[in-house]
């Protein structure tokens, strides 16, 4: 899963798949996309033969707030709390973006990856959503912080998920997804696209279980079991006895990727996010092409 596919090889994306990724957007800000997540994005782009575009957003709101005299920057590294001016913050942002660009260049070279790096200044959500319009997949990183677990998808990050039309892959800072792929299917109309996404992430259609499907409703489970038994030998169906048992699910996905519909009821639950934060997996949120576009912002609410 980790080895990149040379660009000369055809990517493993069958023409019948509804999930074709040619352009990946990795969005950066001061709080997102650490080196581990960046490596995961580079790996995925290399494997899919996709182009990787990196976007670093200089948050104007953040810059404007530093104009206020009572604003202090609390250091995460034990330095004294001190006022911070816009030029000072700009310098920090510039240093951060330069570092990110260097890291991306270092990751791209051995993978023979097509990549670009862009810096935009504006509102984070607006810039990312606008940039994501031209991409087949948006990759966001978790927020790292010096205490406890990384704050996966804090409100500022989660607020990006809704407006974006395409799939969104949320990667952890220190753990690119290399492990098992699990899919949660809650409705029959989601099944095809979610399974395509799972296979895409798993990187193969060969025999053997590449994805485990968790199905909430028993009839649907039976139906899917019959269907996938005919068409997708690589898929194993397993019933999620109780959607509330998501803790067990997250534990099972440890080190891998969980594929969810962007309309999943799981995302509505605050406790799910807390359990998810404790887990060790990436999250791929997939929209059904028509429904989700019509449905608009279906997920990622606190």
């Amino acid at each position, binding site marked *: 899963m980790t080895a990149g596919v040379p660009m000369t090889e055809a990517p493993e994306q069958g023409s019948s798949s509804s999930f074709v990724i040619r352009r990946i957007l990795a969005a950066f800000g001061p709080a997102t996309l650490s080196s581990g997540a960046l490596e995961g994005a580079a790996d995925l782009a290399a494997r899919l033969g996709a182009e990787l575009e990196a976007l670093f957003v200089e948050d104007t709101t*953040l810059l404007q707030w*530093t104009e206020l005299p009572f604003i*202090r920057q*609390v250091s995460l590294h034990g330095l004294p709390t001190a006022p911070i001016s816009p030029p000072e913050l700009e310098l920090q942002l510039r240093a951060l973006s330069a570092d990110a660009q260097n890291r991306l260049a270092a990751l791209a070279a051995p993978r023979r990856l097509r990549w670009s790096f862009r810096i935009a200044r504006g509102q984070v959500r607006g810039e990312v959503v606008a940039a994501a319009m031209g991409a087949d997949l948006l990759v966001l990183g978790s927020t790292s912080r010096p*205490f406890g677990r990384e704050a996966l998808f804090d*409100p500022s990050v989660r607020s990006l998920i809704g407006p974006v039309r395409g799939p969104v892959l949320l990667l952890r800072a220190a753990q690119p997804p290399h492990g098992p792929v699990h899919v949660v299917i809650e409705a029959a109309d989601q099944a095809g696209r979610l399974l395509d996404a799972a296979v895409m992430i798993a990187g193969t259609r060969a025999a053997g279980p590449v994805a485990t499907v968790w199905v909430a409703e028993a009839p649907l489970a039976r139906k899917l079991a019959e269907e996938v038994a005919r068409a997708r030998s690589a898929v194993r169906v397993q019933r999620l006895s109780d959607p509330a048992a998501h803790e067990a699910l997250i534990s099972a996905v440890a080190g891998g990727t969980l594929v969810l519909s962007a309309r999943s009821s799981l995302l509505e639950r605050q406790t799910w996010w807390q359990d998810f934060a404790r887990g060790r997996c990436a999250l791929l949120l997939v929209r059904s092409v028509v429904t989700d576009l019509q449905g608009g912002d279906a997920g990622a609410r606190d």
Partner: protein
Amino acid sequence: MSPPDPLPPEALYRRCDPAQFDFESTAELAPLDGVIGQDRALAALRFGIGIRHANYHLFALGPPGVGRHALVRQVLEERAATEPVPSDWCYVHNFAEPHRPRALSLPAGRGKDFRGAIRELLDELRSAIPAAFESEEFRIRKQAIEETAKKRQEDAFNELQEAARARQIALLRTPVGMILAPVRNDEVLPPDQFRRLPADEQKQIQTRIEELQGRLEAVLRQIPVWEREARTQLRQLAQDVTTSAVRQLIDELRGAYRDLPSVLEHLDAMERDLIETADQFVGGSMPQPGEGGAVTARDADRFRRYWVNLLVDHGSGHGAPVVYEDHPAVQNLVGRIEYVAQLGALVTDFNLIKSGALHRANSGYLVLDARRILLQPFAWEELKRVLRAREIRIESLAQTLSLISTVTLEPEPIPLDLKVVLVGDRLLYYLLCALDPDFGELFKVPVDFADDVGRTPDTSRQFARLLATIAARDGLRPLARDGVAQVIERASRVVDDATKLSLHERTISDLVREADYFAAENGHETITRADVQQAVDAQIHRADRLRERIYEEIRRGTILIDTAAAKVGQLNGLVVSTLGNFTFGRPVRITARIRLGRGQVVDIEREVEFGGPIHAKGVLILQGLLGARFAADRPLTLHASLVFEQSYGPVEGDSASAAELYALLSALAEVPIKQSLAVTGSVNQHGQIQAIGAVNEKIEGFFDICRAGGLTGEQGVIIPRANADHLMLREDVVEEVSKGKFKIYAVETADQGIELLTGRPAGERGPDGLYPEGSINQLVEARLAGMAEIVRKFGSRDDGGRSHD
């Protein structure tokens, strides 16, 4: 006293009769089981070794080649074999003071066992400790601690976030920290909207932000504390796990070494260290020892301090050690601390401590060459310091001299109890006695080796066994008994004494080896007299190029030597030259000239600083002798000058003083001296002739010159009577003497000598106090009296015009 007759041929060479031996060759003889003629040295050695008090170290003095090293080693090894095998010594890490490695003493052989046991222990720990850390129990307990710590932080941060949310404040990340900003409808309030808020509301928001900022700072401050607590808990957990893995293994070692408290103490410290540093085993695989004993950097970092540096291993020893250190540099004596370069710096640890000869010889015997240790910088002082302190303290010389500045060690000193035997020349011993006050305090036992031994039937037989031993030891042919006799005769010649045998074993061994070579060339089964003589001749031939050159110059008249006729104030003295190991004699013309003077005999050699002090002393004795004998009651008014003609180098010794006296007497008496005779001998103020050295070489030197010009039967050499016993002349000399072609006279007094040289009586004072008319002494006295009278007349004429006080 009338002049003596020439010495008979049999007095010129003391033969060793092979018939005295009851063997045909040395193959029949048992090897010599002791030494010849070194009773004094042997007794001193045994005394020095036997006395166990401190500072009774030994100095074996004597010339090189007399077997000092061999005898010392033989006696030491005999003694050492009866003594217990000393302890092994190890250096181990000092866990309390790492720069001061600890020295551990273990019974012989157990040092290696201990090192092996520690190696095995470490091998066990390499698997046991990781296994303990990979156990389910450890993993769960560790995870619980980490989870607790993370939850603590999360709870604090979530609480803060809840508080912020309740106050409609958001936490925003910056590249290096966080700032707080107000929120409206889940969106961060843009600053321009904030500015449009009423002042009171702005103030409230600002207050809320400041309050939350304080809480955030408090949480951030607390995090390192929680993390430290978590680390402490993890460390304690690691220690608990390590203890369970380590204790049982170390307890087994404790059982094996329960009789050695110092080892137990070290094991306790090692166990504590393993447990205290247990966290080094957490979070990584354990290093494996490198192939072929090589040490990887990680392995070295973690485990080197537990190793055992076996400094001295007596596991395979029998008895006390006898060590000879032939390169007694400081580091070879007291050991050294080596360094390795790491990242451009020189570093070391106790594993790099290397033993010295003192460590290896501790509780035994150390043999050193005195000259070599004195030539090594600082070695002599270091040896004395160690012997005085009675402990071996390893200090880097470079550190002592401040040549390098790096982290070094101060290894715990090791108690020292040994005997040191220095082997050196006599001169070194006497110089050290005179100049080094410490020497006498530390080296109280001189072991004085004899150069020679009396030549008796008994010692001759022992000598034959010595030759048998040499032949057997060096794989040579046995010596036939006539070969033995010839070597014995040569041994007398080497010491220039017919009554002695040289104990210079190296010279004897060389001769036997070389004779063996010629025996092989000659196809002999045994080494015969002819082979030995051939070896002697070959030795001389290899070395006598310069002698031949001088003889040639004499024959050609370049160097003026007369061997016939008679001359006034001129005679042939004899000198010896030593070039390398070869000594030869040759004649030298000595002349004397007389004039009026103030009683002064001038030694021209001395005046030009060619003559040494002994030579000058001899000339001054002449002056005393002349004054006392011939001018006791009147001034000695001569001025005599003496010179070694055609001598262009230093002259030392008084062996020509008799010759100089004869030249003076001849010049004073105006009686010619026979140039067919040469003279050697020193004279005292009473006119007695005293012994000199190298009498054989001197006689042979003059003989060779005379033979080259044709022996007349008149030629010969006058030697001191006291040297008669030293004669071991060449066979050809003896042969010509027996034919009456050459003569050797041994005289006791100068009068005997002058009579032989002039053919006139020397003369003794009669009852009237006068010498007989026409005798040499009468002529000399008359001449001196005449000179005194002339001087007196000169003196009265000079005084005529002067006033006296």
